[in-house]
Structures are given as structure tokens and as C-alpha cells.
């Protein structure tokens, strides 16, 4: 068979080709990725573990923490960390007994309404880590390690965990950990972690059976939304497709009609980009009170008063709209002027 050697040669060529393409598994990714420099790692590797690995050295007192708190934290969290207006409260619900046991007793009481951070947190490292990486809300990562020690000390003091004259540091943080009111309140005894690291339960905690016929007696009670909540999520007719097997139920006036009834006005254009760039919208809504008053309410109160508004933006304000102070804002003069002018010119007739 004259074709046999030829075929063998062809196979050999193919085999060589295949061999040339066999690549080592990862060494083959040549030219991809580079070594990180020690400074790069230090710049980003800011996490602190429950064993306090990663905690930078430093310290901060309750007193210094209170000053920082009032300037940077109280506007959202309340002066005593108790506010529920913007975020869930940080302080409250823990007792001296909890500090001894490491279990917050009120968590067992279904009638107790809220859960504060101090009621839930098991490891102080979590508080330190989170404040350092994400707070204040509109200027995350602006606090130094000493600042974070100080505001953490202040929160712990509000919770009765450390005394008024306490200074928290990397040296004594483990002793404070031993006083955290809910330090023993966490469990990993569940089947909802994929893996065996926590020595978890292997079987799900709820086990149902798929009955097919005559399974449950007819429901004795059927709970549904009360009639007054019918329009709580707007007009459901506007939230469903206009074609198909179903329509949405008309639960409120159609959105289109609402648009028509608002008369067109010659209001100045909203400087959306400026408001977002300077994080104004973190605390102010266009027409809704959030942390601070709505822009529309400010505009109504100070028509034409550009200078007054400019001064308020730059210097901060307190007591005019409620208990929550607005801290002084660090935005540029041009931005501040543009926003003040817009507010001053926006008041309706």
C-alpha cells in the first residue's frame, strides 16, 4: 500500500503540531500580570481580620472621638449614635449583663423592635475595618487610623463598654474585644456555607416533603395587604406590560395624568451633575426631605438670597431644619456659587 507511509507521515506531522501546542497550565500565560510593589499592596490591603491581623498601630481617645463624631458622623447617625433616620442605629439595646455574658439578651425578645450595630457585632475588628474603609459615607477613606481608633472609642463609650477617659489602641483592642456585648452571639452551625471550613451542619435546617394530593386542609386564614395600602406602590397598571395575558390593576391615578397636571414653569435647569459630583444628593432630595431638607423647600425659604445660601453651603448649618447639622462643605467656590444661585432662583411664585 503506497499510501500507508504517506498517511503515517501526515499523522506524524499532525502529532508534532499538537505537541508544539501543548502548553504548561499557568506558566503559559506569558506577559500577563506583573508583581505588585510593596507600596501598592500597602495602599490597598487595608482589611482587618477578627484576629486583628492587618490592624495598623495607633490610638484615639473617647474625647477626641466625640469631636470627630460631631463633625463627621452625627449628621447621619445622630449625636449619640442612636438615630434611625438615615441608617440603622449604632448604639443602644445592650446592657452591663450582656458585656459579661457576651450575648445580647434582647435579641431573644421578638417584641424588641430594632437591632443596633452594638447588639449584633461579634468582633470589634469589623467595626474598625468598616469605618476605616467606608466612612464617612460621602468621603470614605478620609479618616486616619488614629481617627478610626477615636470614633470607635466614642461609640464603645456610648455603649457603656469603655469609660469616658478611655483611649483605644492596637495594644488594648483585644481586651476591649473581651467586653463586646454580643461577642458570643454569632454561629456558623448552618448548612448555608458551601464548604467544610466552619465544620458546618451538612443537612439543611428545613426539610419539606413534596406531597402531591390532599396535602393541607384549605387555608383557614388568608392575609393580604390592607385596603389602605392598595396604592402604596403606585399605580400597578403602569408597572405591567400593555399586552399579554394580564394587565396591571389600576391602584392609583395613572402616571401620565400626574405629569399633565403639573403646569410647565420656567424654573432654572437643575445642575444635576454638580449636585451629584459634590454628593449634595446624598443628603438632599429634589422635593423630598432626606437627611436634610428638600432643595425645593430650601429654595422656597430663601428666594433670591444667593449670598446667604453660599455662606450656608461653605460654613455648614445647624438648627434651621431640625436637629441634624449640615457639616461645612469642601466643594470649590464656582460649584458652590452655581448651586446657591440655582437654589435662590428656583423658588416658584
Amino acid at each position: 500500500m503506497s499510501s500507508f507511509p504517506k498517511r503515517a507521515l501526515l499523522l506524524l506531522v499532525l502529532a508534532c503540531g499538537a505537541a508544539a501546542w501543548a502548553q504548561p497550565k499557568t506558566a503559559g500565560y506569558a506577559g500577563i500580570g506583573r508583581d505588585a510593589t510593596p507600596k501598592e499592596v500597602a495602599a490597598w490591603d487595608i482589611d482587618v481580620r477578627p484576629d486583628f491581623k492587618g490592624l495598623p498601630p495607633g490610638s484615639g481617645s473617647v474625647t477626641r472621638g466625640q469631636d470627630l463624631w460631631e463633625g463627621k458622623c452625627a449628621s447621619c447617625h445622630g449625636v449619640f449614635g442612636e438615630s434611625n433616620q438615615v441608617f440603622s442605629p449604632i448604639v443602644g439595646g445592650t446592657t452591663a449583663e450582656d458585656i459579661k455574658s457576651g450575648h445580647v439578651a434582647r435579641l431573644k425578645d421578638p417584641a424588641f423592635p430594632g437591632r443596633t450595630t452594638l447588639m449584633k457585632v461579634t468582633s470589634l475588628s469589623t467595626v474598625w475595618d468598616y469605618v476605616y474603609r467606608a466612612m464617612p459615607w460621602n468621603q470614605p477613606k478620609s479618616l486616619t487610623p488614629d481617627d478610626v481608633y477615636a470614633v470607635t472609642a466614642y461609640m464603645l463609650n456610648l455603649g457603656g463598654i469603655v469609660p469616658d477617659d478611655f483611649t483605644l489602641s492596637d495594644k488594648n483592642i483585644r481586651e476591649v474585644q473581651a467586653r463586646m456585648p454580643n461577642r458570643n452571639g454569632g454561629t456558623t452551625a448552618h448548612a448555608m456555607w458551601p464548604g467544610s471550613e466552619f465544620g458546618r451542619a451538612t443537612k439543611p435546617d428545613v426539610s419539606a416533603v413534596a406531597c402531591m394530593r390532599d396535602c393541607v386542609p384549605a387555608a383557614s386564614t388568608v392575609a393580604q395587604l390592607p385596603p389602605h395600602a392598595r396604592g402604596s406602590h403606585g399605580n400597578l397598571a403602569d408597572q405591567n406590560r400593555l399586552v399579554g395575558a394580564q394587565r396591571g390593576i389600576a391602584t392609583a391615578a395613572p402616571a401620565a395624568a400626574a405629569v399633565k397636571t403639573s403646569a410647565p414653569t420656567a424654573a432654572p435647569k437643575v445642575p444635576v451633575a454638580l449636585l451629584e459630583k459634590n454628593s449634595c444628593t446624598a443628603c438632599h432630595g429634589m422635593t423630598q426631605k432626606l437627611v436634610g431638607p428638600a432643595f425645593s423647600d430650601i429654595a422656597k425659604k430663601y428666594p433670591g438670597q444667593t449670598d446667604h445660601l453660599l455662606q450656608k453651603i461653605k460654613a455648614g448649618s445647624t438648627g434651621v431644619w431640625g436637629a441634624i447639622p449640615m457639616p461645612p462643605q469642601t466643594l470649590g467656590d464656582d460649584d458652590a456659587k452655581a448651586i446657591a444661585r440655582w437654589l435662590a432662583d428656583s423658588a416658584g411664585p
Partner: protein
Amino acid sequence: MSGSIQQTGQVRKAPENFLDAQGVRAVFAEAGKGRRDFIRNAFAAAVAGTAATSSALAQTRTAVGDGDPSILNLPAHSTGLGQPVVTDGYGKPSKYEANVQRRQSPGLTPTAQASVSFAPLQSLFGIVTPSGLHFERHHQGWWDIDPSKHRLMVNGMVKTPKVFTLDELMRLPSVSRFHFIECGANTGMEWGNVAVPTAQYTHGMLSCSEFTGVPLITLLEMAGADLKGERFVLAEGADGSSMTRTIPMSLIRSGEVLVAYGQNGEMLRPEQGYPLRLVVPGVQGVSWVKYLRRIELGDQPYGAKDETVHYVDLMPDGQHRQYTSIQECKSVVTTPSGGQMLLDKGFYNITGLAWSGRGKVKRVDVSVDGGRNWRTARLESPVLSKCLTRFNIDWVWDGTPAIIQSRAIDDTGYVQPSYKQLRAVRGTRSIYHNNAIQSWQVQANGEVANVQLS
């Protein structure tokens, strides 16, 4: 009902915010009243039903006279010239689809930067969520990040800490996989009682996409990771919140965890973490860290805020379950569903979604009598692991009240529980991981309501 009613006292606050004592009392008081008022309310609705049903009938069903004007009178689109190509360089849905939007639940969160928008499940088909309708959960606002300046660092217990650019990550061998992502707090508002009206608000912190990216294990190996012994991985975002979560090593070793840049054929949307996010199949959305900047390998869990203080499940004994991650088997009928209205008696296709964080959906049963009797639904292909599965079942509505439910079973044999079964173990204060069977009541007037049975 007057449109001016703005009562939102039924709404339980978002994961980070809880009702105060008064609010909780109001919820339970109103829920009790809701039960008492139900019969009266249903009667009133039935009386009003005739008019409401006919007004909802937008399309004529029977030919009148010579026939349907939509057939007899040729419309402009049959008799004129249509629009040119590239009228819009990035095409948008029909203007008639403007109602299909993601939405916030009123009163749920006091700020819009630490908030949620819900995907309109009641209007979606198949298993893929259009990227623009994907649910959103931001902790400190979203960003549109310049990909040329974005970096991914791998450090910790590795031989050499590494830095990768997007260009480099996109040169590596990629995989594309369909997976669901569900917020751990999805359906959280319903733990205590009925709180919201539609499938969008009860189950809309759920989406499903085809994700494209590089298995995380590849990057760890490239950095010379020490993978012997017990290991934990931290994932960290580049945004203000710099979200962190401990990622289960078993899913990294299996190659399931992806460092993803692609979503449904294009790059990730900014709201979903453009240009890089972690994909952790079967695990709650908070672990799918957006704007991913860093991966750290260690030998202990990290105790991040969103695994030990938030996203923890409060048990009746007062202990918090920490590091809860798997989204257990769950399903929901998406049509007919709460807030919708059936146009007439007769045939309907009951359709919905089923999923499991432990694997594939094996079976879905549907009941139309409040769970007394069940029929097995058709599963549409593909049926993929840790992915939404679409189910359908025929139903002829005879005009009498019906309570529609679905119950999913996954390939581990786990059966989706009823509220009664779930609450017997976990109480009503868990906030997270509510995977109970959902009930929709079709009332005699065709209106569908979110209900809970006991």
C-alpha cells in the same frame, strides 16, 4: 381606591434599617385587620369587578359587523415606508414597553445611594434578565469606572502579589456561564406578613445573566497561591464602600468563581460593577463584589461587615447565623402574579422561575388550590446549575377564586418549604434567605393579590 393614599406603613425597612416598635405593631395590627377586612373587601371588589374587567379588555375578542378594524383598515405600517437602519446606534425596547422598568420600593430606604431597585419579574420571559432591567443593590452609590485605570490585585498567602490590568485579564482564556444572582434579602419584607403587592417587589432582587470572565483559581495559581490546608479568600471592591466578603474556597477550587467582565454579550453594566465583578454561583449577591479591585488569600475568615453584622440571619434563640451564603432552592410564579388582572376566564399559561444555589432544579410542582393538590410543571431548557429555570403549566380558569403556588425541588432532593415549615425553624426575624412558597390569590374579579396562608 383613591390614588392619594400614600400609606406605606406595611413596608419593612431594608436590610440595614428596621421598623421601630411602633412600626412593627402597626404592621401586625394592619395585617390582622387585613384578614378581617378580606371578606368584605372581596365582596366589594366582586361588585366592582364587571366594570373593571371590561375596561381592561383592550383587544376585541369577537368579530363585530364586517370584522376587526385592525384587519379591515390597513395601518400606516402596512402602507408606508419604515425607518432606516441605525436610527439608534444602541437599540431600545419598543415605546409600548415603557412600563417594564426596575423600580424602588417606596419607603424601603431613606437614601437612594444605599438602596435597591427591583427587576420586573412579572414582565420577563425565559431565564435571561435584560441587562438594563437587572436589579440593583448599591451600598454607597454606583460609578462608571474608566477600565484603562482599573487594576486587580492578588495578594495574601501567595508567592508573589500580582497586579492585572483589564487588557491582561481579557487576554486570558475565558469561560461564559449562565447564573442567577439573588440578594440574600430578596423576599425579606415578607418574613412577618404580606408587605408588598407584586412579584417585582416580593422577588425582584433576582436576575440571571450569561457572565464571561476568568476563573479566579487561574489568577490565584498565577500568583503562586499556597492552596494547601484550610483557606479563605477575601474579595474587595474599589468603590467608596469597598465591599468585602469572605468567598468560599470550595467554589474557587471547583473553578466556579469567576472574575467577570462580560454580561449578556457585552461588558458589565456600570450598575453591575463595570469593569470587573466577582461571580460566585449559588451564593447571595452581596458576595458578587462589584468594581472588584483585590483578592486576598488567607487562612481565616475575614469577619466583614456584610457577613457578620449585616446579612446575618437572626434565629429564634437570639443567635445570628454568620457567613450564610447559599441561596436555597426557591421558585415563584411570575404570571399570573400579584397586582395583575386576568382579562377573562379560560385558558392561561402559568409561568414562573425556579432556582437553587446548590445545583440544578429537578422538578417544579404547581398548585391552584392553595397547596392542597399539585401538578408537575414543564421545565423549559436549558436547565443549568445555579441558574434560573423557566417552568410552565396549563391552567383553565373557571372564574372562581384560586390560590396559585409553585414548589421547586433541586437535584440534592431539597424541597422548597411553605411559610409554616420555614418559620417553624427560623422564626420571622431572619430578614434574609426567605425561600418560602409564594401564594397568589386570583379573585373572582380577576384581580391577583399577594397573600399568605395559615
